[in-house]
């Protein structure tokens, strides 16, 4: 069978049909996978929250805070014990200073700001170098690089090369700086919010509702 002639009508009609069918199929697939995608994203986030916080009995409503030094807001997931006392909060923070650009981290704090754990949600760092951040800063055998149980108020969360108290990942100073940048952003924003919340004794929840 010979190929169809390239008349104007034929071309327009063909392209229209091809894109129509393509679009139709994609709409169908999108509908089909939509729920599964949201589910897997939420699951990754929930797993991270549980991982970074000490044991808690229920999660409060999450709220968003705008950091002083960034243009995207951070999401805070407060966690309470059985008596509805705040045991800590998981903060979903970010940095744009990574070697591979954007890094998203979930970090857990006690109410006074001590780090209880962290989990890197998303990063584009080099495998074998900066990608080690997923485990590097949680290493009880090497207290100089461990950030768990430390409070950024008393420990300077800056790499030792820049005069801080945390040892950077070997040969990955940029990634380490970026990681600590994200953690510090979470800490500063979280602590600032805790302070304003306790200052305004009665209006503690007004800020939370303003998301």
């Amino acid at each position, binding site marked *: 069978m010979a190929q169809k002639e390239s008349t104007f009508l034929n071309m327009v009609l063909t*392209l229209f049909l091809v894109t129509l069918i*393509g679009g139709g*199929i994609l709409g169908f697939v999108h509908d089909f996978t939509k729920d599964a*995608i949201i589910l*897997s994203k939420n699951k990754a986030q929930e797993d991270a929250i549980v991982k970074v916080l000490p044991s808690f009995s229920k999660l409060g409503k999450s709220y968003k805070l705008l950091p002083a030094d960034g243009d995207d807001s951070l999401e805070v997931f407060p966690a309470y014990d059985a008596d509805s006392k705040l045991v800590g909060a998981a903060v979903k923070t970010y940095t744009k200073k990574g070697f591979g650009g954007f890094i998203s981290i979930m970090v857990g704090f006690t109410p006074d700001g001590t780090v209880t754990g962290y989990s890197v949600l998303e990063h584009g760092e*080099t495998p*074998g170098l900066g990608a080690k951040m997923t485990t590097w800063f949680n290493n009880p055998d090497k207290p100089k690089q461990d950030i768990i149980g430390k409070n950024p108020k008393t420990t300077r969360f800056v790499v030792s090369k820049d005069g801080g108290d945390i040892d950077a990942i070997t040969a990955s100073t940029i990634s380490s700086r970026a990681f600590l940048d994200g953690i510090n952003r979470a800490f500063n924003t979280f602590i600032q919010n805790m302070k304003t919340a306790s200052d305004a004794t009665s209006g503690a929840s007004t800020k939370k509702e303003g998301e």
Partner: protein
Amino acid sequence: MNQLDNFTKGFFKESPTFTLLLGMCPTLGVTSSAINGLGMGLATTFVLMMSNIVISLVKNVIPGKVRIPSFIVIIASFVTVVELSMQAYLPSLYKSLGLFIPLIVVNCIVLGRAEAFASKNDVLSSMIDGLGMGLGFSFALTLLGCIREFLGSGKLFGITVYPENYGMLIFVLAPGAFIVLGYLIALINRLRKA
């Protein structure tokens, strides 16, 4: 050409990676570990096979002058299907391949096979050609990934073979990809002459 030749040519004789040097961007970009290479290869195989089938089916109703845009739309549709499915059911693989999945659309192997083979041959041959080329590409990427992962971080498919500290980091980084690819091409060329 019989179908067996048609299938096996993608592995060696017309290997897209080692002989035609097509699709270098994902080849160099994702092969920092064996599993990434394999995942990328299989995703490309699916797209290649499906687009080859569809294009050989519709080749006669598509006017010559709008051939390329039509092919691209067909390929892009399949790539998006792969992307959405992977995001839904294989989130960890999707995370590590990330940017490279949409780039399958502009992978020269896919359009190359559509233009050079599927638009001139029947459905069965095109399907086998797509499958063979795709698996050949997967094989090349996995091989490259294995070598880089082994030399760079002392692992094979994520299983530690020797302590990571003794690995040569350069093989995980971009220059290592060029070095390994160069040596593999040299080796394949030598084998071809023999």
